[in-house]
């Protein structure tokens, strides 16, 4: 990972939904893939440890579903919607730097079977998230 300037704008893909706690959500059918945003990984710095839930765990909206740690900081992950965890990204174990390099693709965190599609409407659009983080 190279030097990143603070003046650099975050990557905020327009096709994704976002939470105020810096998670992104991508919905395909009944499955939502969840990760952390480029802005979040930038704020955290070098990610060195990721703790994710086991498949089968039921998450309610805003539940803490895991932890991301950088060398100097701990950040908890908040579920942007309710549902059952169907998969955790086991490839991240030992390759945590992927969260800095590719937060929207390779470094997705969990896949959740969406319980209440109405919750999706409450998430931020890319524009809304951009405003949220002041860019």
């Amino acid at each position: 990972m190279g030097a990143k300037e603070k003046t650099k704008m975050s990557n905020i893909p327009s096709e994704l939904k976002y939470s105020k706690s810096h998670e992104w959500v991508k919905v395909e059918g009944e499955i939502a893939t969840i990760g952390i945003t480029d802005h979040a990984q930038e704020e955290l710095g070098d990610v060195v440890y990721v703790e994710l839930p086991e498949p089968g765990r039921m998450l309610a909206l805003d539940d803490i579903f895991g932890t991301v740690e950088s060398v100097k900081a701990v950040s908890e992950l908040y579920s942007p919607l309710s549902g059952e965890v169907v998969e955790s990204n086991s490839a991240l174990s030992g390759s945590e730097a992927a969260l800095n390099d590719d937060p929207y693709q390779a470094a997705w965190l969990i896949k959740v079977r969406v319980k209440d599609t109405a919750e999706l409407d409450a998430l931020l659009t890319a524009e809304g998230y951009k405003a949220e983080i002041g860019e």
Partner: protein
Amino acid sequence: MLQWAEMSEALRRTPLYDAHVAAGARIVPFAGWEMPVQYAGVVAEVKATREFVGIFDVSHMGRAYVVGEDAKKFFETLTPNDVSKLGNFQGQYSLLCNPNGGIIDDIIVYRVKQTEFLVIFNAGNREKDLAWLRKNLTGFDATLADRSDETCLIAVQGPKAIELLGESVAALPRFGLGSTTFGGVPVTAARTGYTGEDGAELICNLAEAPKLWGALVAAGAAACGLGARDALRIEAGLSLYGHEMDESVNPYAARLGWVVKLNKPADFVGKAALTALKTSEQNRLVGVTLPGRGIPRENYPIFADAGTESVGVVTSGTFSPTLQKGVAMARVPASLAKVGTPLQVEIRGQRHDAHVAPLPFYKNV
């Protein structure tokens, strides 16, 4: 944003602030200053310092001179280490202790000559230390001059730091003080540091600080922030004021008993208390590592194996970029301080197996 604007007005900046911002550093408030916490990233900066040279703006630290006939006598009676052992242009790690033996600050004392001493202290303790020095100067034929804001202080650290700084710095003994120039800038160099690597801290005038910083970067040194500095000092088992020590902690409980020279000729502040503390039951500061993947952090509770009550606490912890695992310093009862003793660290409600490990975790000087 308004809140930040208001806050930043009260925060101070070193003369290198613009250079930090221009280099893409992330700036955070620290001990009343706006300081760079990272540039390229903590991992890259730690690696640069362990493998080549890292540079750190530490201009926020306090620097004061005590000058006069009694300068030496003043430090003999104020500090627990033995300044009578110092020749001209030599320094030593030391402490300011209160009469109860509690640590007011950790400092470095340099003897420039018998009638002139330089003391370097923590940024967060500037006002407290200056007040303590002034108060204790009563009755001594010496004066205190706070020169903290008149110079810049840049730490140059790493296995190639001395080579990069040149022969006159290479000729200095550890904790030696000397003069040289770098990049055309005259500097006072002190062969010391806070990373577990060889290196020096350079004092230069305010106006030329950006030029010196730029010359160091041009020579291949990596600009490093407070994040890397903290990870490096924890790897090196070096204590930080407010974490491993404070006024409620005495040197014996902070792995700093070696600083206290009870047998030196001069009586000194805290001697009676420290004499009693030396042989009393103490908590100990130890290294702790986890074989698993958890990262111990400050204030995480420590348990004796299978115990239900916490017996200690993590004072500083981090992921060690050099060792690629969680490392910590922790305060535990003396009975649990032996290397290898099994412990458990509670991380977000879950106990993780750990054990007492030798300090430092890493050292290359």
